[in-house]
């Protein structure tokens, strides 16, 4: 225990003496959180529409005016040729095309199922999904009006209007910041934790002090524990700063317990730091460590569903997320903050993170060789 004290003392001195790292550790995440929270948006604004109206009936015009009136859509052009419209999509000037065939108006009057063709630029799958949803909701809204006016003329049998209504629970206005920000918090503590730990032991290898350590009777676990604890504390502080920003600057809901978040962060960070230390013990230069850490970071992050919906990944991709600690922590932190989930709701995910922590730390201790 006394030995651990001296090791910790040395690590903290080194961290706080590194004048170039300290601002990076604390300023970068704050900046990241503020910038990304605004930039990484799923909100739809200004979807550019090209409308091909071969019908030119009052019904098609009515629907077009609905799109015109919506704040989400800008009707860029109204034309008669689908080919012309597609050219605009190729030029990336148009996000979606709506095609009214020449029998559209007639079909509405006859009530035998009018159809509109919607062509969406789906290069970005997640925004394409959103265009689709928004366009559908405008059309649905129009549908209701048509049915209602039909009902008026038809005295006799009532027309059954099937209406589906949505209630978005926990995030009623579908705001993106409450959804994105918890995920960005996870990203931030992960980047700091993984990179600091991955670069640390290997740095002692580079400057040669690791040999001096290896020739002493220090136990492997003592050495790695002394590396892990300071970074755990830094991670906690980062998380604290992030939560404060989330609460006071972005005013996102805090339905659950902050202590529960910290409990999960404790388990999670031990896993991430153990993984970082494992990278560090297996590499010989900081450059190698950096590349390997970056490799896993990118995979974990892109698979996690923070920036792209997991649902649009292939099946095997979704299954890979069973092994993705970032995905679990993002899920948990969203549950706690936005839904107010308690410990029993997240116990499965926490157990999995616990297993990840135990495995990564034990492999790191095992793979750290005092003897070559």
């Amino acid at each position, binding site marked *: 225990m*006394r030995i651990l004290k001296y*090791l910790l003392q040395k690590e903290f001195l080194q961290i706080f003496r590194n004048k170039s790292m300290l601002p990076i550790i604390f300023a970068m995440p704050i900046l990241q959180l503020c910038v990304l929270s605004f930039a990484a948006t799923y909100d739809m604004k200004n979807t550019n529409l090209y409308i091909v109206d071969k019908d030119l009936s009052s019904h098609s015009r009515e629907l077009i005016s609905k799109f015109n009136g919506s704040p989400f859509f800008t009707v860029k052009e109204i034309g008669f040729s689908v080919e012309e419209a597609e050219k605009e999509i190729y030029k990336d000037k148009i996000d979606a095309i709506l095609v009214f065939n020449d029998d559209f108006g007639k079909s509405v009057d006859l009530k035998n199922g009018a159809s509109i063709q919607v062509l969406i630029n789906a290069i970005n799958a997640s925004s394409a999904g959103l265009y689709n949803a928004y366009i559908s909701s405008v059309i649905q809204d129009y549908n209701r009006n048509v049915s209602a006016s039909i009902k008026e003329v038809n005295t006799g049998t009532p027309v059954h209007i099937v209406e589906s209504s949505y209630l978005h629970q926990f995030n009623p206005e579908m705001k993106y910041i409450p959804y994105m920000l918890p995920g960005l918090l996870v990203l931030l503590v992960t980047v700091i934790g993984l990179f600091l730990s991955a670069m640390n032991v290997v740095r002692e290898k580079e400057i040669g002090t690791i*040999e001096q350590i*290896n020739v*002493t009777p220090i136990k492997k676990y003592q050495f790695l524990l002394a590396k892990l604890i300071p970074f755990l504390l830094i991670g906690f502080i980062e998380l604290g700063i992030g939560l404060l920003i989330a609460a006071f600057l972005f005013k996102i809901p805090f339905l659950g317990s902050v202590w529960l978040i910290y409990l999960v962060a404790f388990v999670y960070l031990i896993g991430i730091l153990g993984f970082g230390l494992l990278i560090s013990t297996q590499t010989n230069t900081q450059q190698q460590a950096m590349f390997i850490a970056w490799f896993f970071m990118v995979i974990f992050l892109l698979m996690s569903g923070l920036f792209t919906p997991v649902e649009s990944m292939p099946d095997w991709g979704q299954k890979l997320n069973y092994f993705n600690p970032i995905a679990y922590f993002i899920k948990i932190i969203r549950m706690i903050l936005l839904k107010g989930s308690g410990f029993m709701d997240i116990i499965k995910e926490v157990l999995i993170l616990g297993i990840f922590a135990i495995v990564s730390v034990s492999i790191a201790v095992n793979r750290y060789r005092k003897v070559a």
Partner: protein
Amino acid sequence: MDMNSDVKVIKVKNLCKKFGDFTANDNLSFEVSKGEIFGFLGANGAGKTTAIKILCGLSYPSSGEISVAGFDVYKQREQLKRNIGYMSQKFSLYEDLTVFENIRFYGGIYGLSKEVIHSKADDLLKKLDLQHARNKRISSLPLGWKQKLAFSVAIFHDPEIVFLDEPTGGVDPVTRRQFWDLIYEASRQGITIFVTTHYMDEAEYCDRVSIMVDGKIEALDTPAKLKEDFNAEDMDQVFLALARKAINIE
């Protein structure tokens, strides 16, 4: 020099170390007595560092019987480490810590108490005339001071043996001479010194030297005896005679 030649603190018998097809240490056998200054000489790449790492418990031998400070290098690694000091070729103090912080750290991890660390650190700094630099960072010190300090830190926990791997590389002759004064002093206190070097003038300072060529020990005796055997004026000539022999064999 008062040497208790009965007690052998390093015993090496048929030490071999292979890296694939390459034999770095080819059947080394030697013993070192307590308090002795043992010079381990050889050209670059002769296998000195490989051997020293095995003796320090930093590397596994391929075969051979080796005991250091009475402990077996295979089975009693941790006890062994408690009883040795090591100063590597690469500079081994933390540059971003101060002189005292480095001393405290190494003292602490060998389990010395706070009081002992403080009093020994004071003595040490006084001896090295470094009291004024106590709170200076290592990075701000000249190389010669760093090396003297690194040596003092390596013997701070009073080990039985200290291993020095080319401790005086890159410093001027005056500083090297001062460094050897520290080595003599440690030897007088009963610490056995195992030192590798490729400065042949330093070989003269050793009680006994071994000369390694291509992974084998080609000569092992006192400097005086070696000069006599090889009919040489100084150790440089002894070394060149052996090195030439190696080239002839090839």
